[in-house]
């Protein structure tokens, strides 16, 4: 039976609710389910830190099955950084344990009177005191809870950043999974929730074991033969992208003032392997094993991943890999999103260069960077301003151009001036500057499944829409997007059919994805976002004069017109707050 735990911390009350097959059929699970629950349970213009904001931990129909990468979970709420609907997807094992505990999702509302943990255990939910855990870094928190509840459980927790309501605080699960972006860790902090612990032994029924067996045999072959999932990621992890992206002049440095980094080799995947990687790790049931454990100055820790590495190196003008790794460990301990942290630091460096902020912070200042990361998590001194994210920081000090954000979320490690499709994907993303809503880099750089001309706008709108719909579905199943480098939409639909017994095909999968996308867009419109928010920072709409992308101007307006037409949102004029033509939500009952 499907079950959602509905927890009101203010009362405190726990209800077990059957979401009904319609909800799950239309929204699948994971991101889709969470978005629908948040949409139905939130009033517009609510402060994300208000007790009435809800946050949802959601698994998908494939979670805890034999399908590869099925240990993930999705975390959904209204973001304190962007004020958009926000879902963040995390690897590790927590999703597996949450599903095994007997729940498809846990919805949390209200605010606990004191620091608490939520324990989801074999079909039961209890709220317990977290007095002894409050203030601990994430690693210590996980260790304490595993000591108490045993090693066969999942722990998703916040660090000091979340406790102090840093707007980009993240949620760390099991020490290796990060629901990184959007500040959902701060939402938990605002509810006085330090951690959620999940434990259980329930098994997921599979409708057609034979079909699943055949599919999995085919999947593993394709995953292993794919050059990225079979070779590059297992060997180098995601930092394999540093040299590749820099080669194409898309590795932004110095707060996107340049589109490449002269010292990229010093912070590349090769440099990481030579000096720092100790071993690989993988999430639940994952054959790719892209996670890397590093060691520096006697301490071992996770990562850095490509985005974290970039944000804490090239973006800030730092070329010392030891510093970058240590800064990454610090962000993990404190529970901070590394991309927003790096981007906010780079913003501060630019403001300092213009003498607009009250401290001297030069590009590449390694020592100050580490201290400021700490100050951000504890909201001390300038750290209190940094804790607001780059958009609010830049606005406060009178130079909003210094913040490289879309809809309040800082952009990641691919300069859009080098890939027009990715530029469109950034601008139209429902959660802001994000490469994971539509990863056009796979077409425009990696050539997977096919290589496109990155400087042509032709056909890009269609592809962006397709990817957005497809990834919305994948995030709702909840699977790792790296699988999509080797497996196509029909294969994934077949896996869903094998597990659920329902006649899914790629068309149904993409329809569900489109429905989820449109609901997210509806939420944002309700919050006051309009089509004028589908844009890029001014700096990125002007060409650079050096490097492989010199002279290139993104034809954003032209692509946006195509995009709205493909989406069916256009009736001759841009959206501008008008109701969506086909949101796909009609006739569905709220929970």
């Amino acid at each position: 039976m499907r079950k959602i735990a509905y927890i009101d911390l203010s009362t405190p009350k726990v209800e077990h609710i059957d979401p009904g097959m319609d909800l799950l059929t239309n929204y699948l699970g994971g991101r889709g389910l969470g978005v629908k629950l948040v949409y139905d349970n939130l009033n517009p213009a609510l402060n994300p830190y208000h007790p009435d904001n809800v946050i949802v931990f959601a698994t998908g129909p494939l979670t805890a099955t034999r399908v590869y990468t099925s240990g993930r979970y999705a975390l959904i709420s209204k973001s304190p950084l962007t004020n958009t609907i926000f879902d963040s997807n995390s690897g590790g094992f927590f999703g597996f344990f949450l599903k095994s505990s007997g729940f498809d999702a846990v919805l949390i509302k209200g605010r606990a009177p004191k620091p608490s943990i939520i324990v989801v255990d074999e079909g039961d939910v209890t709220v317990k005191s977290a007095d002894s855990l409050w203030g601990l870094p994430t690693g210590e928190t996980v260790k304490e809870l595993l000591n108490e509840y045993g090693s066969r459980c999942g722990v998703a927790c916040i660090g000091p950043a979340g406790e102090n309501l840093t707007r980009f605080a993240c949620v760390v699960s099991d020490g290796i999974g990060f629901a990184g972006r959007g500040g959902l860790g701060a939402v938990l902090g605002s509810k006085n929730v330090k951690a959620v612990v999940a434990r259980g032994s329930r098994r997921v029924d599979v409708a057609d074991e034979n079909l699943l067996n055949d599919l999995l045999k085919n999947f593993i072959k394709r995953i292993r033969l794919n050059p990225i999932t079979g070779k590059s990621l297992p060997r180098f992890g995601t930092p394999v992208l540093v040299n590749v992206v820099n080669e194409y002049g898309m590795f932004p440095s110095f707060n996107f003032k340049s589109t490449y980094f002269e010292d990229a080799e010093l912070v590349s995947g090769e440099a990481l392997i030579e000096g720092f990687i100790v071993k690989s790790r993988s999430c639940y049931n994952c054959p790719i094993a892209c996670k890397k454990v590093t060691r520096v100055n006697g301490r071992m820790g996770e990562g850095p991943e490509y985005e974290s590495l970039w944000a804490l190196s090239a973006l800030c003008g730092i070329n010392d890999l030891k510093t970058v790794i240590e800064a990454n460990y610090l962000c993990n301990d404190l529970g901070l999103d590394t991309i927003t942290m790096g981007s906010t630091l780079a913003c501060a460096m630019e403001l300092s260069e213009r003498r607009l902020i009250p401290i001297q912070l030069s590009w590449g200042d390694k020592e100050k960077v580490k201290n400021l990361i700490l100050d951000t998590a504890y909201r001390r001194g300038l750290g209190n301003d940094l804790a607001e994210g780059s958009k609010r920081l830049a606005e406060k000090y009178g130079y909003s151009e210094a913040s490289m954000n879309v809809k309040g979320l800082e952009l990641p490690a691919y300069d859009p001036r080098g890939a027009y499709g990715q530029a469109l994907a950034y601008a139209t993303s429902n959660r802001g500057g994000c490469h994971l809503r539509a990863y056009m880099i796979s077409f425009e750089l990696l050539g997977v499944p096919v290589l496109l001309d990155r400087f042509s706008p032709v056909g890009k709108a269609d592809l962006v829409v397709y990817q957005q719909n497809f990834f919305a579905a994948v995030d709702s199943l909840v699977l790792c997007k790296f699988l999509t480098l080797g497996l196509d939409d029909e294969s994934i639909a077949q896996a869903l059919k094998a597990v659920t017994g329902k006649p899914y095909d790629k068309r149904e999968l993409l329809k569900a994805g489109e429905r989820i996308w449109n609901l997210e867009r509806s939420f944002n419109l309700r919050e006051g976002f309009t089509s004028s928010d589908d844009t890029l920072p001014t700096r990125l709409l002007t060409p650079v004069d050096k490097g492989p992308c010199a002279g290139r101007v993104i034809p954003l307006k032209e692509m946006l017109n195509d995009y709205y037409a493909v989406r069916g949102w256009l009736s001759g004029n841009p959206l501008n707050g008008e109701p969506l033509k086909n949101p796909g939500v009609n006739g569905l009952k709220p929970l």
Partner: protein
Amino acid sequence: MKEEVYKVFRKYGRLLAIHGYVAGHGGNLSLRSGNRMFITRHGAHLEDLKPQDVIETRVDKPSSLDTIASSEILLHRAIYMESAQYLACIHTHSPYAIATSFFYDELKPIDAEASYVLKRIPVVEGEAGSQRMAEAVAKALKESHSVIVRGHGVFTAAQVIDVAYRYACLVERSAQLLYLVDVLKKLGYTFITPTHL
């Protein structure tokens, strides 16, 4: 140097395409220079290569740029590491060579030029992009200048790309001749063995 390599790749890519030995995304080219390897990128059209289709990477160990290099990079690297005398490799999807590979474990050319230059062309097996195929091809190329992977295509190696290109042409010509001779035999013609071969 990359600019020079591009010019070379472009010339031989076009020639191979004109002959019909490569089409679409098929085939790849590589050159070795010191501890560097230049190879066509994954998804490149050999008939119309662009400068960005040339990837520079390491020959002695994997590199992050392997991510966008030809999916046969493992194999090219294995060839160079096994046989220091080779500085150029060509891979084609030549149709007659592929067709005859289903019927022979080894091709013995019957025309004067190929029988003299190539002597024998071994046929090996292996899945595209796999370590097993890379090892099989590299091993075969230690003893011979050319090899056919059954059902897949031709790999040739030489000190200069022009010679590797010549070998690729000879392999396909040999396979075509074998086929034509077989057809003529089946049509009832009597085969006359040349005394000079």
